């Protein structure tokens, strides 16, 4: 049996995510349609840019780029926005007794929801560009990847959020770090265009394995073991680091936000 508190917290996270989504779209004409229109427009822009302007010579580049960019958006938006999750929710941190980790977690979940809305867009593009979809594999691999990426992103968000309470410069550093990783991580380009003797370094980047896992899943492959190992290893490493930092620094968060 689950402790009643966990299901209560789950409800609270649900309401916090719902709040963010409502607040984001409430005053727009299209409302929730934006959740799907946004990734679709995004896909179109990239398609036009790379198909007709940059003219990248890669087979089905649009699918390649979208299967990388949507998971990346989830990762980078969660961490960059979640870094502010304590200082931007001052009244929740200071004025009510609440398990504080619910705040960064609801940030991660909210971006996950946006990612989930983007999944049909990816399939739509896959189908209209004439590739095939493998429903059976997707059926269990997509939920698996959703869980893995949540576990991957959450500790990073916690680290950012806690450190940012102590040193506010962290939020800017995180922003810069993610713009750097946008290019360091083979995402808008394949790893194969990197000179071969540098490729080993690019493969030390956990984000590469996460993004490439999604690419494998979307293109109907079984998740390779190396990918799974890297992602799980990163999750373990990030979680330990986050737990250590949180354990050491969390007790004073309420008075420093």
């Amino acid at each position, binding site marked *: 049996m689950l402790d009643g508190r966990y299901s209560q917290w789950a409800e609270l996270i649900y*309401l916090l995510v719902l709040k963010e989504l409502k607040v984001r779209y409430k005053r727009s004409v299209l409302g929730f349609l934006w959740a799907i229109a946004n990734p679709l427009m995004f896909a179109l822009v990239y398609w036009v840019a790379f198909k007709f302007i940059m003219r990248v010579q890669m087979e089905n580049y649009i699918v390649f780029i979208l299967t990388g960019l949507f998971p990346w958006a989830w990762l980078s938006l969660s961490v960059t926005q979640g870094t502010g999750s304590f200082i931007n929710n001052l*009244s929740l941190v*200071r004025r*009510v007794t609440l398990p504080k980790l619910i705040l960064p977690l609801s940030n991660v979940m909210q971006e996950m929801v946006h990612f989930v809305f983007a999944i049909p867009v990816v399939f739509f593009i896959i189908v209209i560009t004439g590739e095939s979809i493998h429903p059976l594999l997707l059926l269990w691999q997509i939920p698996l990847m959703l869980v893995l990426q949540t576990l991957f992103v959450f500790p990073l968000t916690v680290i950012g959020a806690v450190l940012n309470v102590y*040193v506010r410069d962290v939020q800017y550093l995180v922003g810069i770090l993610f713009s750097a990783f946008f290019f360091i991580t083979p995402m808008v380009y394949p790893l194969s265009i990197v000179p071969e003797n540098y490729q080993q370094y690019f493969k030390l980047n956990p984000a590469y394995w996460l993004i490439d896992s999604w690419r494998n899943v979307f293109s109907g492959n079984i998740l390779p073991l190396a990918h799974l190992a890297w992602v799980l290893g990163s999750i373990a490493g990030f979680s330990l680091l986050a737990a250590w930092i949180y354990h050491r620094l969390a007790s004073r968060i*309420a008075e420093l936000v």
Partner: protein
Amino acid sequence: MSMIDVNGVWKTYRNHPQLGIKERLVGKRVPVEEGRFARSWALRDISFQVDAGRSLGIVGHNGTGKSTLLSLILGTIKEDRGTIKRKGRIGAMLELGSGCHPDLTGRENIFLNGAILGLRIAEIKQKLDSIIAFSELGAAIDLPMRTYSSGMSARLSFSVLAHAHHDALLIDEILAVGDASFQTKCSAYFRDYTAQGGTLVVVSHSLQAIQDLCVDGLWLHEGKLVQQGPISNIVKNYLNSRDDVFT
């Protein structure tokens, strides 16, 4: 039976968050300030108990540590020395609109706020009509909260708080923004609440309101406990002392 037992509690202000990386790298310290609001101890050696069914009113000047004390009792910040023992679930209304979002309607905020206070969604649905009725907001309940006056916000928050089950309630000033009829309603609610064994701690500068709400009193001055006793005595002594403090 004491619901809240504060024993020899000290609290400092340290670790100044306004320092960024630059200041830390060059080892800069926050300059020592002087004046009425600058002191190194927020609270010094505070001890008192609140028993079940009692109501305690805390008086004192601005910046004297009243709100810090409530946060300590609530447990969102930690004491540096001493201990605070709490029994049961503690609810608090320390700030107007905490746990509400201005762009959500009053109704939506009832859910959010209720969940933050530990209510289950099913429970909130069940009590929704009663909460809205208690707030007397009527049709305004479906308007975004940014359109609310501070009195209306207080009505909404308080109605949710009154429908959550807490063994002790901490109230910081907030109710003062409500109109007369709402304040009467709150007083009636608190009388019922303490009569049924609930514990109440109130901070207020409205000495009339605090005497209406509370039986016991506690007077803080510059982080120190000056006196505790029946609220009428405390208020009287506090009023008499005011002239000395500013000289």
